[in-house]
């Protein structure tokens, strides 16, 4: 059983489109995260939710909107995709803010 799973694994889309990435964790954790990793491998935190409440919201364009329907799920919706949004997006979860468990990543390519 995959602990943190995200779908899709690959996403290729045109500029201007809207897309969503889904994340689910079966670890019973109360905190979930979205990270963006660019081509230089820098892993930047975007959002964090604790028990469905937004606790971290880094400087991210408001085209990115996280949604947490319950504490096991954290989805990421991106409006009006731009070339610069191309990256690998990782979901992670933790109990509190400690050791994190990562998903396998979603490679987004905006053409």
């Amino acid at each position, binding site marked *: 059983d995959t602990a943190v799973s995200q779908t899709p694994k690959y996403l290729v889309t045109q500029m201007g489109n809207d897309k969503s990435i889904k994340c689910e964790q079966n670890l019973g954790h109360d905190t979930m995260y979205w990270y963006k990793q660019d081509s*230089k491998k820098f*892993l930047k*935190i975007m959002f964090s939710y604790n028990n469905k409440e937004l606790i971290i919201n880094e400087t991210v364009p408001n085209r990115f909107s996280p949604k947490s329907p319950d504490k096991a799920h954290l989805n990421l919706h991106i409006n009006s995709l731009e070339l610069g949004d191309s990256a690998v997006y990782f979901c*992670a979860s933790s109990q509190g*803010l400690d*050791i994190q468990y*990562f*998903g*396998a990543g979603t490679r987004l390519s905006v053409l």
Partner: protein
Amino acid sequence: SQQGEEDPQALSIQEGENATMNCSYKTSINNLQWYRQNSGRGLVHLILIRSNEREKHSGRLRVTLDTSKKSSSLLITASRAADTASYFCAPYQAGTALIFGKGTTLSVSS
């Protein structure tokens, strides 16, 4: 939240050699964590050292922590090709989120 800074940025060694990578941080911490990322994969937690510990071992991994110098090191002994990956340190303060640095990219050639 604070970010750890790994050094060197890249390291190339032969199989069987030891690999040492360092991490520096700026403020007090509760623990410091090391993660590994294989190409195309998510990060995997390797080891956690608490602020009151100086050294910790896990298999071929040895981590040290010097809180007076605000630094940590990760030693991988007898490296294998499968150790080729990026390694990230994450200093942890209670109540704040982990922030990852740019990592050290380790290449182990056979």
